[in-house]
């Protein structure tokens, strides 16, 4: 156990920095991710949002500082499948059906004793959860972009991650599809109780989804602020027309301009 972390913290960064050669992508980021909460991450392009997720998911090491996930090192957490990652493009294996893609994490690592949390939901049920019942046998190229992304979300959920990392998962989708998937994601979040770290470029998406908005600033990438969004749960599309919602958006827009 790393010191100073309690079980209510899904992930914790302590003065974590990431350097690529002479470029400092993240500098001295200290952040505690509260367990079960929905965090959205905003910041100008190139400020290190993806780097932050890649750091937490053990894809890149910290150059200095400490990162822990559920009280474990990121590597231990990865081996225990504590977190899952959803990329901007779905990254499905094109030769596998939707169902087979969702089953992929279950096929990997079994022989080497990687602990798989016993999922209560089968891959089939997960596809149903994301609204793809009946399309189990479709190949990725037979699905729309939004459907593919939903398959990717089902795949991420199959090992019951306690932490779900999402890097602009809906960035390439049209607004209507994005709205629908946002609502679906909120349902999934409430139902599974997982912690979500969600990177986005869209201020309104960040406010709509997040309980907390993490604002990063660029050159070098640093933590600017964590803004709590005190909108009532569950969130509805209508809420976006309320003055409170727009106040948050306005505030974040101003903040973003100074980043």
């Amino acid at each position, binding site marked *: 156990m790393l010191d100073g972390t309690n079980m209510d913290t899904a992930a914790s960064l302590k003065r974590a920095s990431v350097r690529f050669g002479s470029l400092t992508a993240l500098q001295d980021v200290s952040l505690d991710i509260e367990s079960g909460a929905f965090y959205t991450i905003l910041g100008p392009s190139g400020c290190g949002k993806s780097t932050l997720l890649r750091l937490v*998911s*053990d*894809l890149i090491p910290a150059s200095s500082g400490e990162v822990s996930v559920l009280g474990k090192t990121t590597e231990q957490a*990865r*081996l225990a*499948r504590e*977190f*899952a*990652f959803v*990329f901007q*493009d779905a*990254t499905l*294996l*094109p*030769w596998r059906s939707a169902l087979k893609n969702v089953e*992929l*994490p279950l*096929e*990997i*690592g079994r022989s*080497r004793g*990687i602990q798989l949390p016993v999922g209560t939901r089968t891959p089939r049920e997960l596809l149903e959860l994301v609204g793809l019942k009946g399309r189990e046998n479709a*190949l*990725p*190229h037979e699905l729309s972009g939004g459907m593919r992304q939903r398959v990717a979300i089902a795949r991420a959920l199959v090992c019951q991650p306690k932490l779900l990392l999402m890097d602009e998962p809906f960035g390439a989708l049209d607004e209507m599809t994005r709205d629908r998937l946002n609502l679906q994601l909120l349902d999934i979040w409430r139902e599974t109780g997982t912690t979500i770290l969600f990177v986005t470029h869209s201020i309104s998406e960040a406010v709509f989804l997040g309980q907390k908005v993490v604002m990063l600033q660029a050159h070098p990438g640093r933590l600017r602020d964590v803004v709590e969004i005190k909108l009532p749960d569950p969130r509805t599309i209508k809420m976006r027309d309320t003055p409170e919602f727009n106040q948050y958006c306005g505030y974040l827009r101003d903040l973003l301009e100074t980043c």
Partner: protein
Amino acid sequence: MAVIENIEMQDVEAQELAEARKRKMMAVAVPLGTALGLIALWQIGVKAFGVPTYIAPAPSDVAVTFVEKFPILLENFWPTLFESVAGFFVGNLAAILIAVAFVHSRHVERAFFPIAVFVNTIPILAIAPILVLIFGPGITAKVVIAALICFFPTLVNMVRGLQAVSPQALELARILSASKSEVFWKMRLPSSLPFLFSALKIAATTSVIGAIVGEWVGADLGLGALIIDATFNFNSPLLYATVFMSSGLSVIMFATVATVERAVIRW
């Protein structure tokens, strides 16, 4: 109203279907017609100018020979088919295994790739006699030549295919803590298949060329031997018939690989 709409819909559909069928027929009819026209032109030309048969036989002569000499053609067809198929399997299997080794280890690639390139630069016609000297006049030399001619394109394509996994898929594998062999079997190998098959389609026809070249250098049987024999005896109709037989063999090989490809690669 509904009924009328329905009928109209059916009409439109039927029209579209008919048009699609027409397009498909045209796609076959145009090249076929052109080919038949050229053959007719050839027949007329040869007859009109009185070209001697040993220089250029009329298509009708070739057709007659093809039917009359069919038993001989077939007798020479089987060994060439066997050599081509055996060479196809040996050459491609070797290429696939070496490609796997290359992707597995940079050192192996650095050590052997230049050699593979060098072997590939030797013209097959130049290396064929050497192989016949080494392996004797039997079937082995032809199989080796056919294998050699398949080898390089498959090697290059397979290496590319095994490396064609997207960086993001590799990150997914890392997050799932996949082992090297899991990445190979679940990602690299399947994603290499389209690359492999485009190489195999090339190999399907070049392996026939390899077998025939091998038979030129030294053989009593096989389409290559028959080509040499017919040429030296100025038996042009037989030569042409053998050439048709050879390209028929290539077409069969190609069609087989293409059929397997369609069955395997559905994405």
